[in-house]
């Protein structure tokens, strides 16, 4: 294992009862890159992300994050995790929410910067239950990065938000990566894939292919990323 990898998932399997959600997945994410986990709903993307941050334990294989074998609690202070649904406290204000998440990570100083980043500083007094879906998603992102994590795990961060906001989110992600943050982002929207430096295609709990968007196009034999993915998925099913 090299410290060059922010995330080193090595042969990880995870089952729920008889259902194999992850089946021998190996993924290595370099420090400072944006790594996209692509695949249809139910492919195992969320399970992989939750295994990376130690919420789930692998049945087989190892997960190493920032040089530390998971699950490990202290290293979680260097990880930001944005869940699929905007997990916030609806009765608290924007500021109260982010201050809470800052406090449990010991990063009270980062509140203003994080709210500025997602453009919610002006709305800091608003109660979360009065916010729109997009605003909640933005706040959820701010809560995930308030402590300047070295690794940001984003589980379908752009689901259910309008195209304009999606573009904004990807601007945030690029700026963060440029500043040295490693980002693992899952999506089932192919047009987002091109914004990642490297991709991992997941289906039925297995890694079908891995590489830069250009490499994936070549492997899948199509200029269209979506078609390339379908080709790769089909080939796997046939074999």
């Amino acid at each position: 294992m090299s410290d060059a990898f922010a995330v080193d998932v090595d042969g990880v399997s995870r089952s729920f009862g008889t259902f194999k959600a992850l089946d021998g997945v190996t993924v290595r994410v370099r420090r400072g890159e944006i790594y996209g986990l692509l695949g249809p709903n139910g492919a195992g993307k969320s399970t992989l992300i939750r295994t990376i941050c130690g919420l789930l334990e692998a049945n087989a294989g190892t997960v190493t994050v920032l040089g530390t074998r998971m699950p490990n609690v202290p290293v979680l202070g260097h990880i930001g995790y944005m869940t699929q649904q905007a997990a916030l406290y609806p009765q608290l204000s924007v500021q109260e929410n982010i201050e809470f998440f800052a406090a449990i990570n010991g990063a009270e100083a980062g509140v203003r910067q994080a709210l500025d980043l997602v453009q919610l500083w002006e709305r800091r007094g608003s109660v979360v239950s009065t916010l729109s879906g997009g605003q909640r998603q933005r706040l959820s992102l701010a809560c995930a990065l308030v402590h300047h994590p070295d690794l940001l795990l984003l589980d379908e961060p752009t689901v259910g938000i309008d195209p304009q906001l999606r573009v904004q989110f990807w601007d945030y992600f690029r700026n963060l990566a440029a500043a040295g943050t490693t980002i693992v982002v899952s999506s089932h929207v192919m047009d987002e894939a091109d914004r990642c430096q490297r991709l991992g295609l997941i289906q039925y709990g297995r890694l079908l292919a891995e590489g830069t968007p250009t490499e994936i196009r070549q492997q899948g034999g199509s200029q269209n990323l979506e078609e390339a993915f379908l080709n790769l998925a089909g080939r796997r099913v046939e074999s």
Partner: protein
Amino acid sequence: MSARRIRAITRRLLEGFRRDRRTLALLFVAPIVILGLLGYLLRGSSTVPSVGIANEDTGPLGVIVADALRHSSHIKTTDIASADGDASLKDGSLVAYIVLPSNFSQQAQSGTVAPEVHLEGSQPGEDAPVIQALQQALISLASQVAGRGISFQPQVTYLYGGATYDTLDYFGAAFIGLVVFFLVFVITIVSFLNERTQGTLERLMASPLRRGEIVVGYMLGFTVLALVQSIEVLVFALAVLRIHNQGNVLLIFGMEALMAIAAVNLGIFLSMFARSEFQAVQFIPLVVVPQVLLSGIIFPVSSEPAPLQWLSDVLPLTYAVNGMRDIMVKGADLTAPSLLLDAGVVLGFVVVLIAAGTATLRRRVA
């Protein structure tokens, strides 16, 4: 009104229940358990009070009365020395003792008997069968003393409470604690479940927070609320309802606080076993009702059938209720071993529940 649409709603409802086995079980099992428990409690209880008899009469009539008392169906009697009476009341082995004074026969001849009736007094209504048994025993006396009626003037004294002590005083002491325990339990279990369903618990688990920190943080937060509530309940009970209190108000508050902390931790622990608020609310009849029936709030534990007494002995509320009554009715302080035991057991439950809540936290986040 469309019958079809109405039928669709009815059907949807029943289909939902078919998949929620736990709710179905509650709906059909809980009534049997609760009613069965109540029936067993009421029919199986030995409600005949234990009464001591100290016959100090130097004349012949005391023996007759004592004998009549022994055969009374209202009470169960044992012969004691009057000097031991108060000790027996205190340790709970007797609820009352009757002293027939040394000049009892003379009193009867002169037409007015004044036997002493010493009552434990913490449970209202227990004096009635004692007085009744005594009155009946004196009827047998009348036939011995020919030609004149005997007037009956028992000298009643109370170890605890007193003549003005009523049902509210008895239940009040227990209910002060119960109200706090019940409400705090419900609020905690629902809030902690919210944390789970709105996804924030998962977020907490993916942060450097330790499980124990989450549980203790929760406990402290709810305890603040619970303590404010305890103060309110206490002030209302003592100042407005004027519930009988012999004890130190701070001790009552301390016992209330312990019950509140136990309720918080029970709520956190049980929230691990509920997937929805609906299921959480179902814990109320399962957890709270049997405790209310068996903790001695309504029916004294000592009068329960033996198997239920064993059950009562492992319920935390039994000790809490007993402790509250020790303080308020009997004026117990921290030198009383019984109160220390009660407080210690409740504290022990708190510690066990904190550990259990912490241990089950990670498993159920996924």
